[in-house]
């Protein structure tokens, strides 16, 4: 693939903006968590795009491995975040019978 790396960065930016918009707009906790996953994926893509940019630049001899390593860490953190978030959703549903963020304003009131 000979696509320049900035196109990968642009895709990461677009996905991050869509995820952020969903995070702000939606009120269903589960969908909000999915939007966080979307943003983490965009971050992953930009890590890999940066790694690709350095690995395929003129004069580079071996692939730069920081990007893939951090992408693996991000994947692990995303899995942890989904597990804890969904456990919280289940605890919330058990006490309130709702998954709407509008119903959970205890600290605001």
């Amino acid at each position, binding site marked *: 693939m000979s696509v320049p790396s*900035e196109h990968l960065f642009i895709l990461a930016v677009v996905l991050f903006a869509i995820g952020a918009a969903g995070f702000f707009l*939606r009120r269903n906790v589960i969908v909000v968590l999915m939007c966080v996953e979307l943003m983490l994926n965009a971050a*992953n893509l930009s890590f890999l795009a940066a790694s690709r940019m350095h690995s395929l630049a003129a004069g580079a001899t071996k692939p730069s491995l*920081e990007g893939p390593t951090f992408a693996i860490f991000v994947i692990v*953190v995303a899995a942890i975040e989904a597990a804890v978030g*969904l456990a919280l959703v289940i605890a919330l549903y058990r006490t309130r019978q709702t998954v709407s963020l509008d119903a959970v304003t205890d600290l605001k009131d």
Partner: protein
Amino acid sequence: MADALFYVMAIAAVLAALGVVLAKNPMQCVLSLLACFFALAIIYLLAGFQFLAAAQILVYAGAIMVLFLFVIMLLNLGAPGAEDPTDTRMFSRANSALMVVVAAALLFVGALAVRRAGPMPVTRELPAEGLDPIPGLAGEMFGRYLLPFEAISVLLLATAVAVVVLAKRDGRAKSGGNA
């Protein structure tokens, strides 16, 4: 050929991401997210990250998506007509225009940053073993990044404990009632 496939997959990923935000039913959101993850895995593969593409499929599409589907089915949120009424009018709330503007500003700033970074042409051939060879990756992870690796293993253990505590059916109230 590979270039055309990249652009097709990029468009598919963006459309699927829009589906996550705009779909009314949480089940449709999960399936859109799954499509987005698969498109991203193909993009990783095209860009030369073979191991990361496999990890993306295994961890995201295999584990995380199953977790989301499991919770949606457990709470019975995917039934037709079970949409959250607050989400059916998500664009008509008072501050939703502001939120869209914030997201558009993020998009604009990001695009500007990429533009300022200048062109990043591909000047070398992709090596046959890809850009994330597993021996090299293992050397990084168990060498330079050994401490973060151990920290993340502790984090995983703490998560396992925390999830059990959170999702357990009110154990404290029960034991309090018996005492």
